[in-house]
C-alpha cells in the first residue's frame, strides 16, 4: 500500500510528485502520458523562468525533475476507477492493475471536446482531427474547416491560412478568442467565417469530403467542400473515473476548496480537472504543490 497515489502527469501531477517526494511520501504516479495538455502546446511564453519554451520541452524538464526522486511511475495506463475501501483508496487501471493508497491526488486534466455529429467518429484520422498542430501539414493546398471560435480555433485557423488553399471558420458564437488573434486571422484572403452556425454532419466515405452546417437564426443549411475538419471547441475534464466518488460541478470538474480538498477526506485534486479558475500551466503547477502539501498534512494526522 502506498501512502499517496497521484493520477495524471501534467504540470499539476508532476509538481505534486516532486513535493510529495521531498516529504518522503511513499508515492506512485500513474498517467497515460507525461506532460498532458502541454504536449500539444507549441510555444509557452508565460511560464516564469522561460521567456519562450516549447511545450514538450518544458514537460521534459518537469519529467527530469520528477525522476531525480525515487518514486514509482506507471506510464501508459489510465485510471479507470477509484474506489474507497475502509477509508483507503483503490485505483484500477485500464490494464486491469490495481493499486492501493491512503491518499489520492487527482490531476488528470482535460481533453478536447467532441462535436457529437454523424461522421465525426467514423472519419477520425481520415480528415477529422483534434490536433491541428499534428495534422495541419497534411492538408497543405486543400480546403479545410476549423470548428470553434475561441483561441485554439483561431490558432488553428492562423496556421492553416498559411498552408491551406481555403479555410472555413465555423463558430456557434461570435469569435471569443483574444483580439490579437482575431486581428491576425480575419483579414486573410483565403478565410471565410461562418458565425452562429452549427455543424450538423461531417460527410465522406473513406475520407472527409465536406460538412453540412446550419445558421442558428435563419435555419438555412449549407454544404462546404472540405478535406479536413479541425475540431477546436474547447475541453472537457477527465473526471469520469471518479464521478461516483467525489462531487463534480455541472461542467464535470472536481469541486475542490482552496486547500485542494474534495468532499472525500484523503482525496485531493489539482489542475485543470478541478473547478479552479484559470487553466494555466503556472496555476496547475502551483495547485499541484498545494495538493501535495495538504496530502502530506492529512497523512501526518493519520499516524
Amino acid at each position, binding site marked *: 500500500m502506498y501512502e499517496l497515489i497521484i493520477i495524471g502527469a501534467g504540470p499539476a501531477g508532476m509538481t505534486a510528485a516532486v513535493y510529495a517526494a521531498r516529504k518522503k511520501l511513499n508515492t506512485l504516479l500513474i498517467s497515460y502520458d507525461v506532460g498532458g495538455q502541454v504536449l500539444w502546446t507549441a510555444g509557452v511564453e508565460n511560464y516564469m523562468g522561460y521567456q519562450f519554451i516549447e511545450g*514538450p520541452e518544458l514537460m521534459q524538464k518537469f519529467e527530469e525533475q520528477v525522476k531525480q526522486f525515487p518514486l514509482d511511475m506507471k506510464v501508459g495506463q489510465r485510471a479507470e476507477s477509484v474506489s474507497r475501501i475502509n477509508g483507503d483508496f483503490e485505483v484500477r487501471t485500464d490494464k486491469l492493475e490495481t493499486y492501493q493508497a491512503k491518499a489520492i491526488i487527482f490531476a488528470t486534466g482535460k481533453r478536447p471536446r467532441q462535436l457529437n455529429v454523424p461522421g465525426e467518429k467514423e472519419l477520425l*484520422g481520415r480528415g477529422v482531427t483534434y*490536433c491541428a498542430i499534428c495534422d495541419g501539414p*497534411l492538408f497543405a493546398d486543400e480546403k479545410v474547416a476549423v470548428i470553434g471560435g475561441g483561441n485554439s480555433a483561431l490558432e488553428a485557423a492562423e496556421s492553416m491560412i498559411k498552408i491551406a488553399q481555403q479555410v472555413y471558420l465555423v463558430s456557434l458564437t461570435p469569435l471569443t478568442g483574444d483580439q490579437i488573434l482575431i486581428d491576425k486571422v480575419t483579414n486573410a484572403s483565403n478565410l471565410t467565417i461562418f458565425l452562429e452556425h452549427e455543424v450538423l454532419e461531417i460527410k465522406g466515405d473513406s475520407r472527409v469530403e465536406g460538412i453540412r452546417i446550419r445558421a442558428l437564426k435563419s435555419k438555412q443549411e449549407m454544404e462546404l467542400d472540405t478535406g*479536413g475538419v479541425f475540431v477546436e471547441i474547447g475541453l472537457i475534464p477527465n473526471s469520469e473515473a471518479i464521478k461516483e466518488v467525489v462531487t463534480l460541478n455541472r461542467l464535470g470538474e472536481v469541486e475542490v476548496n482552496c486547500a485542494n480538498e474534495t468532499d472525500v477526506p484523503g482525496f485531493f485534486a489539482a489542475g485543470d480537472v478541478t473547478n479552479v479558475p484559470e487553466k494555466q500551466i503556472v496555476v496547475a503547477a502551483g495547485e499541484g504543490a498545494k495538493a501535495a502539501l495538504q496530502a502530506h498534512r492529512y497523512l501526518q494526522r493519520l499516524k
Partner: protein
Amino acid sequence: MAQKVKIYTTPGCPYCRMAKKFLNDNGVEYQEFNVAEDKAAREEMTKKCRSLGVPTICFDNEILVGFNEAKLRQKLGL
C-alpha cells in the same frame, strides 16, 4: 523476423514523439518520414496508406494510425 517499419510524422505532433520513443526504447528499427516537409512521403501516406493522421505507422501488411501502445506491442510481438 524483423519487419520493415515506417513511421510518418510531423514535427509538432506529441503522439509521434511518444511512438518514436516507444520504438527506440524497444530497440525497433524504423524509417521516419516528416510529412510536413516531404511531399512525396505525404502522398504515399495519404494515397497508399489512405491515412490522414499522424503518426501513421506502416508494417509489411498493416497500418496503425495514432499511437496505441497495446496494439503496437501486439504487432511487434513485444
